């Protein structure tokens, strides 16, 4: 897609996004609430017309051959609620009837691991099972591209992992995936390419490791001060330490993006001692997408 724009009244939800998805790869779209992820993916799915820019899916445009695209894509929407009183099999059978070509319903039931729930009503499924059913509905036509909008929001880690397995098995069959998420872990595990959105704009793109590398830091060092305002330590003082690439105040803590972690920590101890302050709660971790995100936007990916 090129130069995509979508407005809701005065609000510009998507502001000139362009990207391409390589066949057989998984593109992860990462961003905080309201970044424009759903809007972007729904434009790709043909649910919303863009106000500007052009979209091509599988080499076709939505205006010219919508049915052909629909035959060849699988979609899971962020908020669909299935009819409680239908069974898993009944629901899949209905979706199957819309497609000219596709797989056997039983094999989809196996893929999503719901054999035991085949004849159970949707109402009795757990959140994770419902989500897998939702993906099952998207897999019935053996799609070439699978669109997933926050497939694991609100799921516990185990349910999340089971769902990832379903997506991975689709990928290993040569399928292309477009996935939105707020979860770093999910993006790191599933995505080959990433774009990070904020306020409807792309603020970073590339492979997960390239994006992390773009931070120019290996690790993040985070600490607080006991009984003193953290602003006691001035920005210049910290930036002057050997190996610090950037620093930020985050609530009651200070976060440093660094290369050479041991050197920075030694320098930091030194500095704190000289100033007669007391260090509290020091920890370090390898730089992640989350850190890239925070350093780019000053916001956490998730509110929780």
């Amino acid at each position, binding site marked *: 897609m090129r130069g995509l724009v979508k407005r809701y009244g005065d609000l510009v939800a998507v502001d000139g996004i362009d990207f391409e998805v390589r066949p057989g790869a998984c593109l992860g779209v990462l961003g905080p609430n309201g970044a424009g992820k759903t809007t972007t993916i729904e434009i790709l*799915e*043909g*649910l*919303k017309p863009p106000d500007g820019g052009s979209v091509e899916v599988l080499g076709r445009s939505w205006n010219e051959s919508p*049915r052909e695209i*629909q*035959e060849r*894509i699988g*979609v899971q*929407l962020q*908020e*669909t*609620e*299935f*009819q409680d*009183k*239908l069974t898993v099999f*009944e*629901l899949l*059978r*209905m*979706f*199957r*009837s*819309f*497609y*000219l070509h596709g797989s056997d319903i039983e094999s989809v039931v196996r893929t999503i691991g719901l054999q035991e729930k085949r004849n159970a009503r949707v109402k009795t499924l757990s959140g994770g099972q419902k989500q897998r059913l939702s993906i099952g*509905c998207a897999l019935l036509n053996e799609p070439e591209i699978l669109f997933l909008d926050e497939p694991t929001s609100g799921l516990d880690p185990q349910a999340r992992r089971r769902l990832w397995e379903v997506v991975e098995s689709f990928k290993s069959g040569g399928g292309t995936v477009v996935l939105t998420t707020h979860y770093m872990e999910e993006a790191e595990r599933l995505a080959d390419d990433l774009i990070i959105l904020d306020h409807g704009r792309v603020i970073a793109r590339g492979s997960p490791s390239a994006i992390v590398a773009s931070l120019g830091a290996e690790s993040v060092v985070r600490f607080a001060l006991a009984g003193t305002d953290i602003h006691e330590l001035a920005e210049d003082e910290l930036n002057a330490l050997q190996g610090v690439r950037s620093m930020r105040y985050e609530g009651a803590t200070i976060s440093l993006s660094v290369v050479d972690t041991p050197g920075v920590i030694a320098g930091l101890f030194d500095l704190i001692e000289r100033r007669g302050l007391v260090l509290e709660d020091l920890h370090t971790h390898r730089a992640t997408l989350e850190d890239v995100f925070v350093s780019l936007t000053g916001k956490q990916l998730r509110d929780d």
Partner: protein
Amino acid sequence: MTRLQEIRELTRVRVLLFFREPEAIFWVFVFPIVLAAVLGFAFRSGGIEPSTVAVVQGEGLARLTEAFEQDEYLEVEIFEVREEAFDKLRKAAVDLVIEPGDPPRVSFDPDRSEAATARLRVERALMPAADGATEPLVQLEPVTETGSRYIDFLFPGLLGMNLMGTGMWGVGFAIADVRRRKFLRRLMVTPMRRSSFFISFIMSRLVFLVLEIVVLAGFGRWILGVPFRGDVISFMIVCVLGGVTFAGLGILVASRVRTIEGVSGLMNLVMMPMWLASGVFFSYEKFPDVLHPVLRLLPLTALNDSLRAVMIDGDSILQHGSEFAVLACWCAVTFLVALKIFRWE
């Protein structure tokens, strides 16, 4: 898969969902039967009502009660205290009070038609005693015609009302529900044809329609004894056309509204006038003459009139082209408009 399979599966899902909704079963099948039974019982013209007369103790009491015994439609209650009898009269528990004397004195409420009947019966009972004539003045030939009772009028109206209610609620609610669940959007990203979506509603309505008609008409025919004089084909044509028309109205009502509450409100707004003015419980001829042509343009009026003509008068639908045309127009127009304005997103 083929177009036909798509429609079949969508219809199957609609039918399954309906049968898994116990309330729906109640409103479609049980409620109209209960309503017909209750109204039929309450307004039954149960033959001739006897008159109850209060006789006050006094000279000549025996002569009066003896005369009244001759008439099977006179029930006598004897009161020792005059005031008690008048108290009953005020409460309309008796139709008149008679005090022995020469001539006996009769008190009644001239505004009650039962009182007038009772008065005539009392006078007639006392007449032979007066002039000695024993021969009846006229010969009586009771005529009992089915098809002229209130229930016979009511039943086709209830059937029409039920077709309207189930068509509109059944379809309107189902659409509002898929919309609320955002399930409609999910369908929009599949190659499902939009027309199949609508056709599935019509098809599932037809399935219920057949069940509904069989259950209700069977109840009317065999339990209430309502006549079915017309031919079955005409009857089915009227029912199907009515059912489809109201399903179309249901789609129309739900075509833009986003919430269940919005749909129910709009639905009531559309149906309420027809419950009253389309001749369900009483004939629309009770409204001023100038309104009749307008009332006949309402779809429920056309449906009720056709049902009555076919069931009670034994007409064929061919004799009722204008009602048929009114229904057909509603059907065509509602579908066209609904398709035009339907909000998919």
